């Protein structure tokens, strides 16, 4: 049995709002292998970002991780006290956010913001920390790194800022990096550059990567495995080529069909009808059933369990679309 660097089982993160309980993440199970790239895909509101925050322990009140288990290199994170979590954050597991202009403090220099990431975990001299920061900047391809260290965030372009964020994440050589839509805010040309660079860096350093995005095309070229989320649950996982070529879940099929590249010129785009449900008022049964063209009464009444298929594929569906062989169905959620 391959030991995964990150193992999540039945993670549940709920938000206790005045309007009721919002189950942003409701029973998510994922695994990430050492050095593997996992694409976590879903529309906005699917719970993918909250999953990322939950792993980091950065869920803001009124949200809270209410159940499940997150094992990082064997260590259980759920229920861990704050001090220990803090030691892990930034060291064993790092996060990159969407908008680098907002994630870098505008009134502090880059070197300050990078060295503090090192100094928070190790007792090294400032000089040594600076040297490492400079090395990291050079690694992500920032020219004249020594001078750039003394600069402020607004003096960088968008792509460069994100590179700085990536460099910062890599500083302590974490086992896992969670990237929450890091290229969405960037130019298309820069996007692909950064994508390739991150891929190479992770391969070089053996760092696992969870790439959170709504863009299937990004995932296609980057990830080895993919997990598709809908309304707080993972509805399908599997090796990326297989899932994209031969989706099991109707939602995945729908996402693929609605891509502009899949469209036949002249024909209307194949959109999924309806809209994502409000997470505070989910329908009984399968959350996707109101929008699914294959839905039956069973789907509307009973929420499907996670089923295992061959080639390490999983999906939650009563009527799988693919002909791939079913291997097992657990009797509990």
């Amino acid at each position, binding site marked *: 049995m391959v030991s995964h660097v990150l193992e999540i089982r039945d993670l549940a993160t709920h938000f206790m709002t005045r309007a009721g309980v919002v189950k942003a993440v409701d029973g998510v199970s994922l695994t990430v292998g050492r050095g593997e790239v996992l694409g976590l895909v879903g529309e906005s509101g699917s719970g993918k970002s909250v999953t990322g925050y939950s792993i980091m322990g*950065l869920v803001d009140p009124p949200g809270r991780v209410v159940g499940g288990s997150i094992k990082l290199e064997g260590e259980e994170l759920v229920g861990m006290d704050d001090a220990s979590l803090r030691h892990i*954050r930034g060291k064993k597991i790092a996060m990159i956010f969407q908008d680098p202009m907002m*994630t870098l403090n505008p*009134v502090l220099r880059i070197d300050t913001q990078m060295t503090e990431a090192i100094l*928070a975990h190790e007792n090294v001299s400032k000089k040594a920390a600076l040297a490492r920061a400079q090395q990291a900047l050079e690694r992500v391809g920032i020219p004249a790194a020594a001078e750039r260290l003394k600069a402020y965030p*607004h003096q960088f372009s968008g792509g460069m800022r994100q590179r700085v964020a990536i460099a*910062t994440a890599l500083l302590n050589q974490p086992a896992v990096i969670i990237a929450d839509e890091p290229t969405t805010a960037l130019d298309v040309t820069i996007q692909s550059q950064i994508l390739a660079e991150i891929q190479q860096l992770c391969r070089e350093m053996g760092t696992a990567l969870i790439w959170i995005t709504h863009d299937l095309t990004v995932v296609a070229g980057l990830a080895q495995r993919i997990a598709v989320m809908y309304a707080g649950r993972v509805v399908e996982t599997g090796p990326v080529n297989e899932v994209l070529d031969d989706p099991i879940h109707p939602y995945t099929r729908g996402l693929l069909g609605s891509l502009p590249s899949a469209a036949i010129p002249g024909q209307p785009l194949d959109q999924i009808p309806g809209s994502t449900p409000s997470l505070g008022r989910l329908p009984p049964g399968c959350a996707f059933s109101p929008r699914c063209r294959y839905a039956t009464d069973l789907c509307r009444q009973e929420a499907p369990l996670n089923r295992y298929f061959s080639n390490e594929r999983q999906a939650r569906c009563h009527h799988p679309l693919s002909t791939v062989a079913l291997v097992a169905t657990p009797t509990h959620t």
Partner: protein
Amino acid sequence: MLSFFIRRLAQAVLVIVVMMVVVFFGVNVVGDPIWMLISPEMDQEAIEKTAAALGLDKPIIEQFFHFVKGLFQGDLGRSFVHGEPAIQLVLSRMGATMELAVVALLMAIVFGLPLGMYAGLYPDRRSSRLIMSGSILGFSLPTFWVGLMLIMLFAVMLGWLPASGRGETVSVFGFETSLLTLNGWQHIALPAFNLALLKISLMIRLARAGTREAMLMDYVKFARAKGLKESTIIRVHVLKNILIPIITVLGLEFGSLVAFSVVTETIFSWPGMGKLLLEAIQRLDRPVIVAYVMVVVVLFVVINLIVDLLYSVLDPRVRITGAKA
């Protein structure tokens, strides 16, 4: 950067010129101008002689030039009450007022900043709500009434602190200051606190709002993701961000501190410019009034200029690109 500075300087000069015109025409149009220069007790003949001697029968424009000339020579007439040149009188009291204002400003920072930050970090706690209610009281209460209460409590009932006057002064580099003696601090404690109360309330509200906003920013989240201690995050990331607008506001409020010192100095018999002004108003000592106004205007303009410069120095976004953030 230089062009920015020059532009602001030019603006400042313009404001001073405008004020000069306003003050002159204000004093001379409202009421008989002759009263500005002579004592109210002279008889009619002497008045007319003085008027002629001072050229007050000449056209108003000529009088204005005369006024400006006198201004540059530092001559704004003599005080009726004290007999000294008005401008010197005002300047001699300026030190005491500045001392009071500076101590009040320091109090505002020392008390207001930590309380405000606390209220911003833990907005739902009882103590935070208490602080905020306190701040409402702080700027609702009229300064003079607070002064009265302070005197009643600390001076009359408890007898801890003196109710009036300035403490012993020590000469430092030619300036008199009362801050180097215990006696001096005892005397300045109540009036400075009285003056500071409004600013403390302001500080609390500013610091709270700024802290709340800063804590929601993404860079705080990112700092947490890096594994920084919460206290470090507050100290390094949040503090620096809120200090910039707070310092600029405080700088501008310094002028209002000087203005409000009129009330505090009167209640506590503090020998500053404010008390001088009030006496001048009560006794119709117009040269002193004019001198005070001119001094205060120049002071304000200088303060505004300094604050502008300070802002551009503190905020790296402004400093490096030269643009307004």
